[in-house]
């Protein structure tokens, strides 16, 4: 088969292009195929295409595209195309874009679980209370009221804060 473009050399590259319902086949020689590739390189870069696409799908992410992390210089778009963050600060810098992303990924956007002890006692307690609340819901769901009462007592004990005591006093 002769090359469709130059009609001289033997066609060695066979391309199939599908647009809509139409299928178009192209048979080219090495050299013409190479030239075609060079034309492709002049097309918009993947980052541009991505930026365009994101702008169409989710305008607020488009707005995020101007954001960059002040600490490491990583831009939000760079992050979206590589999937990797540049530094711990990015979670704060890209918060607006990252929260919906985390929701999609994990079905949640807030941490529950271990807290480094140096993060402060207050946070450690807050997290334990969050976990206990979940357990309380589960116990109630299972109608295990004995367990639920124990968990509730533990929550009060931990919170030990004024607002809880206050409520209790009002109740009493």
């Amino acid at each position, binding site marked *: 088969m002769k090359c469709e473009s130059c009609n001289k050399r033997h066609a060695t590259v066979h391309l199939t292009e599908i647009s809509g319902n139409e299928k178009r086949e192209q048979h080219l020689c090495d050299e013409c195929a190479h030239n075609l590739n060079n034309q492709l390189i002049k097309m918009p870069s993947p980052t541009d295409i991505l930026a365009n696409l994101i702008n169409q799908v989710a305008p607020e992410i488009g707005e995020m595209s101007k954001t960059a992390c002040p*600490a*490491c210089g*990583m831009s939000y778009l760079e992050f979206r195309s*590589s*999937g*990797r*963050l*540049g*530094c*711990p600060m990015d*979670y*704060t810098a890209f918060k607006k874009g*990252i929260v919906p*992303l*985390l929701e999609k*990924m*994990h*079905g*949640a*956007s*807030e*941490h*529950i*679980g*271990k*807290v*480094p*002890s*140096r*993060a402060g006692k207050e*946070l450690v307690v*807050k997290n334990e209370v969050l*976990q206990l609340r*979940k357990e309380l819901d589960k116990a109630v769901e299972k109608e295990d009221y004995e367990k639920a009462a124990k968990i509730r007592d533990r929550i009060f004990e931990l919170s030990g804060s004024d607002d809880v005591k206050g409520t209790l006093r009002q109740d009493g």
Partner: protein
Amino acid sequence: MLRELYDKTGDWLRGTGPEADIVISTRIRLARNLANFPFLSRANTEQKREIERLIREKIKHAKDTKDLHYIRLSDISTVDRLFLMERRLISREHAGGDGERGVAFGRSETVSVMVNEEDHLRIQVIRSGFELRDAWKIIDEIDNILERELKYAFSPAFGYLTACPTNVGTGMRASVMVHLPALGLTHHIEKVFNAVGKLGLIVRGLYGEGTQVLGDLYQISNQFTLGKSETEIIEIMESVVPRITSYERMAREVLISENREQLEDRVWRSYGMLKEARVLSSEEAMHLLSQVRLGVTVGLIKDVTAETLNALFILTLPAHLQKLEGKELEATQRNVLRASFVRRRLGNTN
């Protein structure tokens, strides 16, 4: 140290612990990063070196980790790195990565700490059998000790901050390695995949790509790391994994009661091949080992232990064979060596 590793296998290959007929091992890993450095994809050579040095020094001084053996991966050969990977002490990415990076691990190979993998720190604990609570207890303690020495990147809202947002929150990936030959033979494995996926867990073949999973070995792990506490993640695994193992056991019983002759033929034929073959590819060895392991766990074959077979899965991998021979070998040479190694291990002196 690597020589010493070669002469034995990790404790997690013992074949002991709950559900050990199906659950070969349990692993938990935690991803941690230092607060004052960029993540590795953004760190320059100098910063990587600094991170590695800082963490290495802390590991060497902290109680509980100071007895770990530390290896800088840039100091060892490619085969040695692959050897550590086959041993599951480091990940494939860590073995193939570049820049200053290392691993610390204990003599029993229960604990390993990767430095400068995708995150600054990847702590890992592996136990034999289904031992999530036990693994969590060990890793939680190591994490507490390192945390006293290193300032972790942590945010109250997002938890432990990681280079990839798929790990953020607890930074915890709990996984079990399960051997499911009967579910494979009875074509029920797809059902397990579908059911498990809906419960927030991921299943993937341990070795090989595509439909044919080598050795019927699968890794089941938690998909989500954010919004669930470490205990909750463990609870989910604890409720799902026993259902899979009992399903596998059921499939084994069905095979025995309804297809006993075929099953016997299959496992004994595989055993015969392992004991007599002169050339064994890695794929074939995995496949045959899996069949024989099935034969042992259902009580058809009694003259070899599950522990021996567990070890053979690892010891017959390419880098292990090259360490055995003390030099680099072509695949065809490895296949001959693999066959003779397996014959000897199974007590055939011919």
